[in-house]
C-alpha cells in the first residue's frame, strides 16, 4: 500500500505540502480531481495520478475520478460540473494557470457550487519555476472567492479537508492559495480517516445555473450575501488565531502563509514580547477579530510575501475604527513586494522596527568567484538536436518566439533560440504579430503539451491570415518539465487507462496548415533540410519534431535492460574545434587545461547525436567491455 493512503488514524507521516493537500481531499472523500500540471503545484495532481494508476493496475476503483485536463480552464470547468452534480471536486494549478482558468473562475463564483470545490493555486514567489510572481490572493478578492492560506503541510491537509465543508456551507468554491515553500516543503502530518467518495451525483436543473442578464445580476447580489456569510465563518475559523510570544503588551504582528514560520522563529530568537495574529482564512478577513486586534495594539507589523493585501485591508480597518495604530510593512519600506521571505529578511526588518540587534550575521559572499550554474537542456535532449538543425537552416536575424517548457532553456549560449516568452501558447501568437511587423524570418517553438493547452488558437490565426511563419512543435511525447505527465497526445491518461492519442500533425492538418514537416531531430541533416523548406514556403508552415524525452528513454532502457550506449572522443582524431561544446552545447562534454575534450560518462545519456555533428568523425560509441 502507498503511504499516502495509509488508514491508521492519528499516525504521523512525512508529506510534501502538495501531497498533504491530496491527502486532505481523500479524507474529505473527493469525487473528482482535475489539474493541469505546473510547478510548484504538480505533485498534488501527480499524487492523485499515482494512486489511480496503482488502483487501475490492480483492477480496483481508486474511489475518485482524476484527469490531467487539456488546460486549467478545462480542468476548472470539468470539476465545476461535477460540483453541480453534487460531487466534491478539487482543481489544482500553478498561479499563472489561474489566469487561464480565470474566465470560468470569475463567473463560477456568481453561480456558486453545490458539492464542495477546492481550487488550489500555487504561487511561486522568487519565480523559482515561473514567468512571474503574481499573488493569487488578488484573485480571491477579484472573484470574491473565500481564500485559505496554509502555513505547514499539516495545515494544508486540514484546510483542504475542512475546506470542502466550508465550501458546501457557503455554496462557494474555495481558493486554497499555497506558495513554493509550502508546496515543496515536507513536514509531519497527522492522518484522519479516509472518506469513501460517491463517484456519481445527479444534475438538478436550475435556471440560476445559467448566468445571463437577469440571472447574472441576481447572482451577483447572492455572491455578496454569501461573502458576508463567509466573513462570519472567518470570525470563528480555527485557522485565524492569536499566538503569544513572551509577555505581549501592545505590539502585534499580522501574518499569513509561510511567513508565519519566520515570524515565530525570529520573534522567539529576539525575545520579543508580541502577539501574532496568524491568519489562515485571508478572504474575507474576520473584520471584528482584526479590529479588536488593532485596538489592542499601538504598533502593528504586517508580514506577508508579495502583495500588501493584508496590509492594505488592515489600514482600511484602522481608518474605519479611527485607530492611531502605527502600521509597519511594505508601505514603510520594511518589507518588499519582491521575492520570497526567509528568516533573514524578517529578522532584518524586526531589528530595524524594534531597534534590536539582528541575530543573524550579514551574508558574506565567497571571495572566490563561483561560476553560475543555471539549469540546462539535459545531455541527449532532443530539443538541442532540433535547435542545432534550426540554427543551421535559419538566416541571421531570425526571431525565435518560445514558450513555457524545458525548451525555453534553449535561450542559453551557444544555441540562443528563445527571444520572446510571455505565457503558455504565446509563441505562435507572437509569431503572427511579428510576421506583420517585421521582414525578419520567424521560427517559433512550443512543446506538445503546450500545443494542446493553448497553442491551437494561434495556429488557426496563422492559417486564417496566412502569416508567413514557421511554427515548430517539439513533440517529446510528454509534459517533461513538470515531471512527465501525460497529455492528449499520449496513449494513456492520468489514471493509467488507455486513452485516445491525438496526433499533433493530424490536428494541424485539420486546422488547414498546408506545409507540414514531420522530422526526427536526431537526424540532423534531414531536420535542417526540413526547416529550410519550411522557411521557403510562403505562408504558415509547421514542423513537428518528434523524439521522446531522453529522460523517459533512459528510464525505459534501464527498466528493460536495453543498452545505454556510451560515447568517447578519439583524441588522435579530435582537432579541438569545439563544435560539440561551443556550437552544439551538450553539457556532457568538457575540456581540460591542455584543450583536449572529453565526454563525461556519468552525464552522457547516449543519444549519439554528437557523432553526426563532429566535423572530423572523432566521436564513436564505446564497445562494451566484456
Amino acid at each position, binding site marked *: 500500500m502507498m503511504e499516502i493512503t495509509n488508514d491508521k488514524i492519528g499516525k*504521523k507521516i512525512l508529506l510534501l505540502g502538495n501531497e498533504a493537500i491530496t491527502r486532505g481531499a481523500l479524507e474529505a472523500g473527493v469525487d473528482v480531481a482535475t489539474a493541469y500540471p505546473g510547478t510548484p503545484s504538480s505533485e498534488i495532481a501527480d499524487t492523485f495520478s499515482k494512486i489511480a494508476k496503482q488502483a487501475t493496475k490492480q483492477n480496483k476503483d481508486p474511489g475518485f475520478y482524476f484527469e490531467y485536463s487539456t488546460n486549467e480552464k478545462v480542468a476548472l470547468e470539468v470539476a465545476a460540473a461535477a460540483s453541480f452534480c453534487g460531487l466534491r471536486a478539487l482543481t489544482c494549478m500553478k498561479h499563472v494557470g489561474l489566469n487561464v482558468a480565470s474566465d470560468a473562475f470569475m463567473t463560477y463564483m456568481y453561480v456558486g457550487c453545490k458539492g464542495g470545490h477546492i481550487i488550489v493555486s500555487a504561487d511561486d514567489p522568487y519565480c523559482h519555476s515561473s514567468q512571474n510572481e503574481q499573488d493569487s490572493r488578488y484573485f480571491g478578492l477579484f472573484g470574491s472567492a473565500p481564500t485559505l492560506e496554509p502555513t505547514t503541510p499539516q495545515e494544508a491537509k486540514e484546510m483542504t479537508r475542512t475546506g470542502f465543508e466550508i465550501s458546501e456551507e457557503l455554496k462557494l468554491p474555495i481558493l486554497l492559495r499555497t506558495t513554493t515553500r509550502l508546496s515543496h*516543503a515536507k513536514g509531519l502530518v497527522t492522518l484522519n480517516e479516509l472518506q469513501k467518495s460517491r463517484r456519481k451525483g445527479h444534475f438538478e436543473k436550475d435556471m440560476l445555473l445559467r448566468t445571463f442578464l437577469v440571472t447574472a445580476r441576481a447572482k451577483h447580489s447572492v455572491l455578496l450575501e454569501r461573502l458576508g456569510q463567509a466573513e462570519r465563518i472567518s470570525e470563528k475559523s480555527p485557522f485565524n488565531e492569536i499566538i503569544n510570544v513572551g509577555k505581549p503588551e501592545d505590539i502585534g504582528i499580522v501574518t499569513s502563509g509561510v511567513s508565519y514560520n519566520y515570524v515565530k522563529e525570529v520573534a522567539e530568537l529576539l525575545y520579543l514580547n508580541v502577539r501574532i495574529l496568524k491568519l489562515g482564512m485571508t478572504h474575507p478577513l474576520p473584520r471584528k477579530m482584526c479590529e479588536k486586534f488593532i485596538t489592542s495594539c499601538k504598533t502593528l507589523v504586517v508580514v506577508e510575501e508579495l502583495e500588501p493585501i493584508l496590509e492594505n485591508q488592515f489600514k482600511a480597518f484602522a481608518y474605519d475604527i479611527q485607530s492611531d495604530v502605527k502600521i509597519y510593512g511594505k508601505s514603510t519600506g520594511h518589507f518588499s513586494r519582491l521575492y520570497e521571505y526567509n528568516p533573514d529578511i524578517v529578522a532584518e526588518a524586526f531589528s530595524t522596527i524594534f531597534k534590536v540587534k539582528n541575530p543573524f550575521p550579514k551574508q558574506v559572499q565567497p571571495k572566490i568567484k563561483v561560476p553560475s550554474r543555471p539549469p*540546462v537542456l539535459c545531455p541527449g535532449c532532443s530539443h538541442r538536436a532540433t535547435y542545432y538543425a534550426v540554427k543551421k537552416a535559419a538566416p541571421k536575424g531570425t526571431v525565435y518566439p518560445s514558450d513555457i517548457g524545458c525548451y525555453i532553456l534553449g535561450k542559453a549560449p551557444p544555441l540562443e533560440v528563445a527571444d520572446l516568452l510571455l505565457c503558455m501558447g504565446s509563441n505562435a501568437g507572437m509569431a503572427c504579430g511579428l510576421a506583420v511587423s517585421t521582414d525578419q524570418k520567424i521560427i517559433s517553438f512550443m512543446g506538445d503539451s503546450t500545443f494542446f493547452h493553448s497553442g491551437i488558437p494561434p495556429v488557426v490565426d496563422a492559417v486564417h491570415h496566412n502569416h508567413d511563419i514557421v511554427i515548430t512543435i517539439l513533440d517529446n511525447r510528454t509534459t517533461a518539465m513538470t515531471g512527465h505527465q501525460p497529455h492528449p497526445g499520449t496513449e494513456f491518461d492520468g489514471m493509467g487507462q488507455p486513452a485516445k492519442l491525438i496526433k499533433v500533425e493530424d490536428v494541424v492538418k485539420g486546422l488547414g496548415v498546408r506545409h507540414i514537416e514531420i522530422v526526427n531531430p536526431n537526424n540532423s541533416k534531414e531536420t535542417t533540410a526540413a526547416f529550410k523548406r519550411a522557411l521557403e514556403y510562403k505562408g504558415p508552415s509547421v514542423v513537428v519534431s518528434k523524439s521522446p524525452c531522453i529522460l523517459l528513454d533512459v528510464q525505459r532502457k534501464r527498466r528493460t535492460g536495453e543498452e545505454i550506449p556510451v560515447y568517447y572522443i578519439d583524441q588522435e582524431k579530435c582537432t579541438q574545434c569545439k563544435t560539440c561544446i561551443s556550437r552544439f552545447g551538450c553539457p556532457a562534454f568538457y575540456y581540460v587545461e591542455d584543450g583536449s575534450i572529453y565526454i563525461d560518462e*556519468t552525464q552522457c545519456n547516449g543519444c549519439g547525436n554528437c557523432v553526426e555533428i563532429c566535423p572530423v568523425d572523432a566521436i564513436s560509441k564505446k564497445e562494451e567491455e566484456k
Partner: protein
Amino acid sequence: MNRKTSIVLTGVGGQGVITAANILGKATAKANINIYVSEVHGMAQRGGTVNCTARMGDVSGPLVATGTADVIVSTEPIEALRNIMYANKKTKVITDINPVVPFTVAVGGEEYPNLKDVFREIQSRAILYKIDALKIAKDSGAAITKNIVILGALAATDVLPFKSDVLLETILENVPAKYKDINKKAFEGGMKALKDLRK
C-alpha cells in the same frame, strides 16, 4: 525537545541531493523527531545548482538563516562554497572533491576556480571535511550512490539527533532489493571516510 538541527544539502541537479534530503527527512520522522525539509522541483532540477534544507527538533519551518547551519553537505565542491553563507565557524562542511564543471565555464567564459582556493576559503569560514565520495561510490558498485556516501559521512559527525542505524535503515527501505548491498557499502564507506578524517 529544545534542540534544533539545521542542515543544508547542496550539489548539482541529478546528483541525488533531493533524494538525500528526502531520506534524511524520513529517517528523522522514524526517530520520532519533528522535521521540516525544503526541496526544489521543476526547472531547478535540470542540471542546475540544487539547494535543500532539513531542520529537526523545535523548529517552525524549513529555511536555514545565514550563519546558522550545523552542517552543509555537498556533492560538488563549488556548490559547498556557493552555500558558505549558511556556515559559521563551528559549521561542518562535508563535500565531495570531484568537480562537475558547469556549462557556463565551457561556453559562457566563466572560470572554474582552483580547488585548493575553494577548500582554503571554506576552511577559513567553517570546519571542512573533504571526501572522495565518487571513488567510494564507485568502489561500492555505483557512481550514483555518491549521495548515500555523503549521508554516511553526515551520520558520522554526531550532529544528527538520532542514531546512524536509523538513517541506514531508512536508506535500505527506500532502494530496490538488488541495490541494498551497494547502498550499504556506500553509506558505510562515507562513515568511515569521515571518521578517518576526524582521527
